[in-house]
């Protein structure tokens, strides 16, 4: 069957009444939770995971698709009106959009963000529909050593890309990897690092780590910063919608943002941070009004917001075809797949074609539903932001408790949530990125499995790890990413002496 037939078949799945309803509920809930300050798409999916417990896998993933895009729409609303981005991908939107809102152009900023997201999401999903099957064919030629090399590359890029310091990023990845080995070893059945605790045999649940690091740790941190100052809420009152001029200034950034976001999202390094920063820089350079940047240029909202949504679609390519998560959001989706006993990868397209194509089709539908919902309903979401801060954060904790206690009503899970929350607080205080922990946690066991498979085939000869052109290239790239930047910096700045990167990475 051709891609188009499969996609049409996917639409057949997605248009079943129950699945349409799930896409609708997902979009609605995703926006409602995602609009709360500080809650990004990954946390939204984790918090809403209990809602899907009694659903069929296909319906559940269709709902996740709605939640994902809904949370991204909601996040841009909060970023613009409150200047509180829930994820690094909406930092640029917050920067420029909030300035627009302060100048009474909030409605136009929301509109260009929403329409830009729709344009980018639709083009991105279209590209996903055609790129993903091709990549999944390619993935069949990957041997275990190639997979292992790809994962090593992804660990190193994630360390460098996410957060402000490569060293702290690498530590976050390593902590995640360390947490990931706790429990029963899948291949030998031996228990590892459980130190006699029965509760640790099943390993550390991914959802708990995510909820604790992102919600619990964040709440402790925000509380510790002291009482509220003026919240700086910018209501939509008196705002003018997009003018003809705004449209003229927005459509090119939408397309350029999409063109930047999708390909970078597809890369195993991925993430949505870099494309949004790039898009912002590009728009600033190309704009006829560069002086407006920093004080509310519409291009600075339109471009990054499109890039963010296109990257979100791009991230699904390595996730679905290789089982490789490159952001906190795709890591939680991967854990949801595993929860249903499904392993994303090339075989997913063969064995679960209905589910995959239903999911992709529902991305189109969810995107369409969101633009229809959100242009008129923006005012309603804004009202959610009026909940006073103490009650808002207290409510988020109750949601987090449902997510953790609802897993298996285990006291040990509560203890994990508390201690991981303290870890999250410490990480926030010392500016360690949290997303690499999650990616290490979920990708670690997979990397180990591929490593052991590769070494088993070669009967323990480590040369096997670089024996294919793909694996040698990928590992070479990984080495360059670790070694090159500090080397170049030291060479360039040798006379200056002390700089913060010189000590930041050990040469392996």
């Amino acid at each position, binding site marked *: 069957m051709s891609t188009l037939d499969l996609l049409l078949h996917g639409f057949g799945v997605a248009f079943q009444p129950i699945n349409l309803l799930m896409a609708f509920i997902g979009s609605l809930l995703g926006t409602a939770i995602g609009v709360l300050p*500080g809650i990004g798409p990954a946390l939204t999916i984790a918090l809403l995971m209990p*809602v899907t*417990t009694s659903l069929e896998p296909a319906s559940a993933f269709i709902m996740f698709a709605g939640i994902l895009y809904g949370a991204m729409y909601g996040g841009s609303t909060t970023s613009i009106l*409150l*200047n*509180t*981005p829930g994820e690094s991908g909406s930092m640029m939107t917050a*920067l420029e959009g909030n300035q627009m809102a302060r100048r009474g152009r909030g409605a136009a900023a929301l509109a260009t963000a929403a329409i830009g997201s729709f344009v980018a999401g639709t083009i991105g999903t279209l590209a996903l529909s055609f790129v993903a099957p091709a990549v999944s064919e390619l993935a069949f030629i990957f041997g275990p050593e190639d997979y292992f090399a790809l994962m090593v590359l992804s660990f190193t890029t994630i360390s460098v890309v996410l957060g*402000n310091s490569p*060293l702290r990023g*690498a*530590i976050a990845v*390593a902590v995640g990897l*360390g947490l990931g080995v706790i429990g029963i*070893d899948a*291949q*030998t059945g*031996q228990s*590892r*690092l459980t130190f006699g605790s029965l509760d640790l045999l099943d390993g550390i649940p991914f959802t708990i780590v995510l909820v604790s690091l992102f919600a*619990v740790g964040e*709440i402790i*941190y*925000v*509380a*510790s*910063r002291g*009482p*509220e100052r003026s919240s700086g809420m910018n209501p939509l009152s008196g705002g003018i919608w997009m003018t003809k001029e705004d449209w003229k200034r927005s459509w090119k950034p939408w397309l350029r943002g999409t063109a930047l976001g999708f390909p970078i999202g597809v890369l195993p390094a991925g993430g949505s941070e870099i494309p949004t920063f790039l898009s912002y820089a590009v728009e600033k350079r190309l704009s006829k009004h560069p002086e407006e940047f920093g004080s509310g240029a519409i291009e600075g909202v339109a471009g990054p917001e499109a890039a963010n949504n296109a990257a979100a679609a791009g991230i699904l390519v390595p996730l679905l075809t290789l089982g490789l998560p490159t952001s906190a959001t795709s890591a939680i989706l991967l854990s949801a797949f595993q929860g249903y006993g499904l392993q994303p990868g090339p075989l997913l397209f063969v064995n679960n074609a209905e589910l995959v194509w239903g999911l992709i089709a529902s991305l189109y539908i969810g995107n369409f539903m969101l633009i229809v919902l959100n242009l008129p309903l923006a005012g309603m979401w804004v009202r959610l932001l009026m909940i*006073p*801060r*103490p*009650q808002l*954060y*207290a*409510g988020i*904790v*109750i*949601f987090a*408790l*449902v997510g953790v*206690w*609802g897993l298996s*009503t285990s006291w040990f899970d*509560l203890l994990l*949530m*508390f201690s991981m*929350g*303290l870890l999250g607080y*410490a990480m926030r*205080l010392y*500016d360690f990125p949290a997303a690499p922990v999650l990616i290490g946690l979920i990708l670690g066991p997979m990397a*180990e499995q591929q*490593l052991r498979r590769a*070494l*088993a085939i*070669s009967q323990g000869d480590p040369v096997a790890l670089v024996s294919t052109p793909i694996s040698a290239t990928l590992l070479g790239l990984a080495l360059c990413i670790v070694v090159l930047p500090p080397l170049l910096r030291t060479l360039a700045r040798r006379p200056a002496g002390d700089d*913060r990167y010189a*000590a930041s990475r*050990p040469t392996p």
Partner: protein
Amino acid sequence: MSAGVSPRPWWVPGGVIAFGGIMLYGAAQLGQSDAHSGVGPGLFVTIIGIALVVLGVALGVQVARGVAFTSPEGEGEYGEVDDEDRTHRGPLLLAIASLAAPLVLMQAAGFPVTAAVVFAGVARAFGSRRPVVDILTGAVLGAVAWFFFNWLGVNLGPFLPLLSER
């Protein structure tokens, strides 16, 4: 420069090295190689342990050099919170205590009661001055969540274990 963060937080690299040490200790009790597969269950753990120790030492070097632990641009530019703020000990401890409350309460008192206590505690840590309203809000929110998720098939334990025990 953030005044809430001590300039020489030695315990951070110390913690990373300690975690690496635990990994290495655990790995030492596992086989590093085995006859069939070439690699035993301990090898990967050993690699991670070594990585953590090396990275922890590197972080220790940064700390010794006095490298600041904040983002270069300063979070206050984007976030709702200025990094310049010092840590407020009272709200911090209250938030931590409230988040520890489920450890004591959840099994004994059930979800809605726990929710009421946690809600009121966290709201208070964020500066709310209406404890009675907060307790009631938390209780109602907890009860609604319990019934809603129960209906969805999520088990949140007995509703009020204190009553049902009689």
